[in-house]
Every structure is written in C-alpha cells, then in structure tokens.
C-alpha cells in the first residue's frame, strides 16, 4: 500500500484507476499532465528570462555608445528606412496575434484553426526575415557593412564615419541575432504545424503550442524595442 500523493490528499475519492488513461504525450517521470504542463511552462519562462539578459546585454552596450556618440548614432539611424521598419513591425505584431490565436485554438482543440494560425505565423515571420534580407542587401550595396568592406563615407560629417560604422556593427549584430531567433522559431513552427494538423493538441495537452507562443512573443518584444532604437533616432 503506497503513500497517498499530495493530489490524492487534496482530492479524496480519486483513485489511481479512475484516470488510468495514460495520455500518449505524458512523460513517465511526471505524475500527470498538469504537472507536465506546469513544468514545461515554467521551463520556457526561465529560458525567456535568460534571453532577456542575453539581448539586454547588447542593448546595454548599445546604450553606452549611444550616450558616448549621440550624433553618430543619429546619423546611423538615418540610413535605415523607417517605412520598411514600420512595415516589418506591423508584420511581426501581426504574427504575434496569429500565434496567440493558435494557442487559443490549440486550447480549444480547434485543429484547423490552430494549423491555419500557425501557418500564418510562419508566413508572416518569413516575410519579416525576407524583408530584413532585402534591407541587409541594400546596406551592403551602400558600403555600410562593417569591417574591411565598409566603404561608406559621410561627406557632410566625415568625423562621424567611424561612429556610423560602430552603429552599423550594433545594427547588424542586434537585428542579426533577432533574425536568427526568428529563423529558429520558424523551424519550430514547421514542426508544430505538423503536430497541430495531426490533432495532437487539446484542452488536456496544449503546452507545446503555449510555450512556442511564449518564445515567439518574446522575439516580438525584442523587435518592439529594436525598431525605435535603430530606425527612429532623429
């Protein structure tokens, strides 16, 4: 006769046999799906926390140099096309909406809605990355890629050229890391689209979509800060 679990102490009358349906996605080291859901959600939140520190570090370095070189930073931002940035921001926020709706759908076992929303999220995300690629290509053509290929000279303010290059280092590193996170997200989305179409998700088991959402929304939040900081300094 084994000792009662805490759950059984809190819910007298439930015996082990009553819910002996072993959900196909319940991992053996968890007591039940509820514990598994809480564990995976908590795990993703801890992961997001360390991502906040990761991006936060480079935001901090950006801030230090912005404080040191305000004119160069402004000059650098003028090389960004804010209209393209605005378009991309709308696309990305839109993808956050579709992602949130996908989670909503998964929770309600709405297989088709979930799949469609995940596909839309993927398409919007890929649009974002594609536009970013176009922007990068333009910058490279203008000689703004930092390093030995940096041929741009600011004729109006030549003394700012070095600072503009430093700005571009931050531009490429920050948006590059962001885009990398989006590409990883896209890969994960493809996998989840497959699972959603297969009908894996329902009210008892939707945590994979939820935590995918947490990741995706986090990447969106990074862009919410990147857009004004890189495109809108005047």
């Amino acid at each position, binding site marked *: 006769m084994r000792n009662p679990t805490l759950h059984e102490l809190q819910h007298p009358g439930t015996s082990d046999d009553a819910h002996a349906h072993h959900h196909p996605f319940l991992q053996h080291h968890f007591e039940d799906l509820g514990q598994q859901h809480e564990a995976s959600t*908590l795990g993703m*939140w801890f992961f997001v926390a360390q991502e906040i520190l990761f991006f936060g570090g480079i935001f901090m370095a950006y801030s230090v140099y912005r*404080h040191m070189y305000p004119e160069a930073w402004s000059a650098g931002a003028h090389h960004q096309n804010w209209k393209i940035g605005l378009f991309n921001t709308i696309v990305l926020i839109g993808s956050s909406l579709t992602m949130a709706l996908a989670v909503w759908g998964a929770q*309600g076992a709405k297989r088709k809605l979930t799949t469609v929303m995940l596909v839309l999220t993927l398409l919007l995300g890929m649009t974002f990355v594609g536009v970013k690629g176009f922007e990068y290509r333009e910058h490279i053509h203008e000689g703004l890629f930092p390093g030995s290929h940096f041929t741009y000279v600011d004729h109006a303010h030549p003394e700012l050229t070095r600072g503009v290059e430093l700005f571009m280092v931050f531009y490429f590193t920050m948006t590059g890391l962001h885009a990398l996170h989006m590409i990883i997200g896209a890969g994960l989305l493809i996998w989840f689209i497959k699972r959603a179409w297969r009908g894996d998700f329902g*009210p008892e088991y939707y945590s994979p979509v939820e935590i995918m959402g947490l990741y995706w929304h986090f990447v969106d939040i990074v862009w919410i*800060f990147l*857009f004004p900081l890189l495109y809108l300094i005047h």
Partner: protein
Amino acid sequence: MAHAPDHADHVGHSPAHHQAPLGMYFAVFFALMGGTILTVIASHVNLGHWNTPVALAIAIIKATLVILWFMHVIHSPRMTWVIVISSFLWLGVLFVLMFSDYLTRIWNIY
C-alpha cells in the same frame, strides 16, 4: 534576491485552463498597432531630449501589453510574475551600475 517559495507543490490533474475571450487578443493587437503609429509620429516631432524617453515609454507599454495578454502573464501563477519582474530588474541592475561608471567619468574624451 529572494524567490518567494511556492505554495504546496501543486500537482494539477489537468493543465490550468483559463481561456481568454477571443476579442481580447484583437483589442491588444489594435492597441499595439496604435502604439506603433504613435511611435513613428512622435519620432518625427522634435521634442528635444524627450524623444528618447517617449519612444522608450511607448515601447515599454507595448511590451507590457504583449507580456500581460499575449503571453498570458495576467492569468499566470505568481512564480511567472516573479520571473518576469526579476529578469527586468536584473537588467536594471546591469544598466544602473554600468552607467554609474559612464556617467561619472570626468575625462573629456566622451
């Protein structure tokens, strides 16, 4: 920093099942759109040295909307709040102590 300990080990039978009304997601979406347009407009108006704080304030409000509603934090357990707030607090520690150096350097290079 103290992570306040959880209440008794919560072993739920089913996942916590709070489903927000659909309309709420669209409301947040339109608020985010509004914030984005506002940010662009504000950046084209010369507010002197207030441009940056205004841009950051709008971004923080947008991020908060995403966190609270898209990421469901508003309905999440206390531990989630602790994690989110602590991360930004830690970032704050990084910024404040870092700038305690940069803002008090007195040589004229910068």
